[in-house]
């Protein structure tokens, strides 16, 4: 039988160490909403989402109450809208009507984000894909809760450099369209390589076409719990360090598994996956960078950071895999700059640069995340950064992503406030040398070889 010390340990994690379930994300297929009439399509989408997700928020709140564990976000992901909308949308403007419908449906059911305003163009773009991509700046500026993502490459297909070039322009336009709010629109736009179909985390969540009609995916969190448990093994060797991370990850993930199964049972919707990510928030004590410091670095970004992050990421997976029946999504440690106080401190101290962040993304999920850069960089520079990150994902057979925020009107060293879970970020310098000729070549980077690994 459970004893008082075990009960106290769990409650201490929840009350003092920020253990929470970061998100219950309900994936909804919109494939059966497709219609060549735009108005009918919008009606179908609204109905499908509001019917399927009617009990989502209520169920999340019930689970919170029954177990006294915070379920921070209840969210929805849908089939990539480029697929759903192609038959009806003849212009980017047509796609914006779908974004408005998604926003309205999200507000109706009470979720804070809805993901899936997306296009999958890892090998090439259809006319419809291009319309959707070109509609992103407007769509993100006229909606509140819609999140967008574009998959521009994969290990199997290579990288669509036409899409990479276009996305550099789209990111800047999105920044321009939302410049009144520190270019906040860009915080809701992710560019992927090897995007997973079952990712519950925003802004990159969408409901892949390989998925069932509706599915519950859960993202756990708990950097604070890992940090606290590592404080108890200060100075011990790597074996002890790794064992401690594994055991803690196991416990955190088991809570996610319970919440996912309960949500699935109560809503009568199948359980998909648990995403084993350590997702930080700007709250003190809820930071991945602080774990790296606890492992022995003065700041995130110091020499040794990539190795420390690699072991952290791997041990989290090892501990989490056994705790859950199905693991998927992004599953790793997130290193967003603005959403992690330790990362912000490291940038402000001059310890962490864009180049070091890029190196770190080679060994963890998910990529260059929530990084503010000056708003006057050329689109080709953004495309170049995207191409670099996509290449890391393509060659290493992993998911990588880019969520950069070129802040219009702000210079290096100034601070941008996004508020809430999105936090704040210092504007970081970008290498000022050009890559225009590289980006404007056009075409694709071929798929990589799958043997002779070095």
């Amino acid at each position, binding site marked *: 039988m459970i004893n*008082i010390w075990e009960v*106290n340990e*769990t409650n201490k994690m929840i009350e003092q160490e920020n253990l929470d379930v970061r998100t219950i994300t309900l994936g909804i297929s919109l494939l059966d909403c497709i219609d060549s009439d735009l108005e009918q399509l919008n009606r179908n989408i609204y109905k499908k989402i509001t019917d399927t997700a009617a009990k989502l928020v209520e169920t999340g709140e019930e689970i919170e*109450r*029954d177990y*006294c564990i915070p379920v921070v976000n209840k969210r929805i992901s849908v089939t990539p809208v480029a697929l759903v909308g192609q038959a009806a949308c003849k212009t980017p403007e047509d796609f914006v009507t779908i974004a408005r419908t998604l926003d309205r449906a999200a507000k109706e059911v009470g979720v804070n984000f809805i993901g899936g305003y997306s296009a999958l163009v890892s090998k090439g773009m259809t006319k419809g894909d291009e319309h959707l991509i070109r509609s992103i700046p407007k769509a993100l500026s006229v909606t509140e809760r819609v999140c967008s993502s574009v998959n521009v490459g994969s290990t199997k297909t290579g990288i669509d450099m036409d899409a990479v070039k276009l996305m550099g322009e789209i990111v800047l336009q999105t920044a321009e369209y939302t410049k009144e709010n520190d270019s906040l629109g860009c915080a809701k736009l992710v560019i992927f390589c090897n995007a997973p179909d079952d990712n519950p985390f925003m802004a990159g969540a969408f409901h892949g076409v390989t998925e069932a009609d509706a599915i519950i995916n859960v993202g756990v969190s708990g950097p604070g719990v890992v940090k606290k448990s590592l404080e108890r093994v200060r100075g011990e060797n790597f074996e002890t360090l790794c064992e401690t991370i594994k055991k803690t990850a196991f*416990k955190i993930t088991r*809570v996610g*598994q319970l919440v996912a199964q309960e949500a699935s049972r109560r809503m009568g919707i199948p359980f998909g996956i648990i995403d084993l990510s350590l997702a930080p928030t700007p709250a003190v004590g809820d930071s991945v960078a602080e774990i790296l410091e606890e492992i022995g670095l003065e700041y995130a970004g110091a020499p040794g950071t990539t190795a420390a992050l690699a072991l952290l990421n791997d041990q989290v997976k090892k501990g989490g895999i056994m705790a859950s029946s199905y693991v998927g999504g992004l599953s790793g440690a997130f290193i967003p700059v603005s959403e992690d106080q330790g990362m912000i401190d490291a940038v402000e101290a001059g310890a962490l640069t864009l180049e070091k962040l890029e190196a770190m993304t080679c060994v963890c999920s998910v990529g260059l995340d929530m990084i503010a850069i000056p708003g006057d960089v050329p689109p080709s520079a953004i495309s170049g950064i995207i191409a670099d990150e996509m290449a890391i994902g393509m060659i290493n057979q992993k998911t990588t992503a880019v969520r950069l925020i070129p802040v219009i009107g702000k210079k290096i060293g100034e601070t941008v406030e996004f508020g809430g879970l999105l936090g704040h970020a210092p504007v970081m310098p970008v290498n000022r040398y050009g890559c225009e000729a590289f980006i404007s070549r056009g075409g694709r980077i071929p798929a990589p070889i799958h043997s002779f690994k070095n």
Partner: protein
Amino acid sequence: MDKKADRTIITVVGKDTVGIIAGVCTYLAENGINVLDISQTIVQGFFNMMMIVDMNGAAKPFGQCAKELEQVGEKIGVSIKCQREEIFNKMHRI
């Protein structure tokens, strides 16, 4: 739902005073909640109690009992928390 899945853990934490257990147990008795196990210690001067209870015969739904127990706690000056047992079983048992 089977009987075991309906077991609830009640934790009571706060400054030690007269009548904490009496106060909590009176509420449980009045509402048809059966106590299966109690353990209690004092940690650094703080009263710390865990009860395993069976709410199958409870007169009120879980959410209401949890809220009312919280209010009972406020009156005594301790914090009372009601959680379904599975969260602890999941975390601490393979």
